[in-house]
């Protein structure tokens, strides 16, 4: 149901872990992943660990048929199990709807459509929007 694809890259004594979680099922799933690496440097937003991170675990919701990415860094070498799926529970439909939708994007950033006044109307007032004759 849930397919985990993990890649690691070690650079300058830091291991970068990048994974995708794919949900091939028909319902959304809340997936909890655990890493055996210690310490974990989770991604941070404004200095705080990103949503879903807690210690060596991260929880994320993957909608049906979709995939999501997750990643972290650690100074440890990638010997331990890098990431394993601890739990993948089905979630109710409305919880999936928290994924951003086109409507969310327009609401947050504003509709880019040019205003009607900016669009020249052919025939009626085209003369006022055209350049003056030279």
């Amino acid at each position, binding site marked *: 149901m849930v397919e985990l694809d993990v890649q690691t890259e070690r650079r300058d004594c830091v291991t970068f872990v990048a994974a995708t979680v794919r949900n091939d099922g028909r319902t959304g799933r809340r997936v909890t992943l655990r890493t055996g690496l210690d310490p974990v440097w989770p991604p941070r937003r404004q200095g705080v660990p990103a949503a879903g991170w807690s210690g060596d675990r991260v929880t994320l919701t993957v909608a049906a048929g979709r995939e999501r990415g997750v990643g972290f860094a650690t100074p440890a070498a990638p010997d331990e199990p890098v990431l394993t799926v601890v739990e993948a529970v089905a979630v109710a439909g409305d919880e999936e709807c928290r994924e*951003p939708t086109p409507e969310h994007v327009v609401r947050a950033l504003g*509709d*880019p*459509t*040019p205003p009607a006044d900016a669009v020249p109307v052919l025939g009626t007032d085209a003369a006022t929007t055209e350049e003056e004759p030279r």
Partner: protein
Amino acid sequence: MRVAVTGGKGGVGKSTVAYNLGAVTDAVVVDGDLGMADLPGSAGPDLHDVLADRADPVEAVREGGPVDMLPCGRSLAGARAANVRGLVDAVRSVERAYGDVVVDCPAGLAADAGMPLLAADRTVLVALPDAFALPDALRTRALARELDAGLAQVVLNRTGTNPPRAAVERALGAPVTTVPESDPLARATATGQPVTATAPDSAAAEAFHALAAAITPPRRGARRTRRGR
């Protein structure tokens, strides 16, 4: 793969990067600049028509040119009729039919710049080395992350002899590809050709091959399959 080529600022070379990246990865390039399209266009249905529900996105793809394109119209009336909310479905339809898609984003951070990030699964951010607009780049990166199209690569475009690669890598936390200031690239762009076709051995062409390799890392466990065509 659905790549958004973005940058926040205008005039940094987003369209040039998108077009050449499309050529190297054999992707369909979608001109997502609804208000100021600048990729090569031609007669026929375009993205404005697709977003106004007047054309099918797959049928609006032009084959036969140097790069498969879904061009965008250039009229204000077309931009007004287009509903940007439809971009996500249009990009997915093109991906299902053709495989990889590269979306050229408009400048700014209104919904027409945000929507390609929602449609994409990874982002390439284009910046200039001397006029590096860090706040713009950081805001665009934050938005890309929120919309699940994490920053895959930064392109420092039109670099000179000593590009500030390390400083940009540190500031944005993403690997950097540099595209040098290049006459072959300028000539190719002026004639609507990818530089990989007109000057395959140039440094610019090599840079776009490196960019393509960097954003499509070999995947373990899962093989990418190309559909359609």
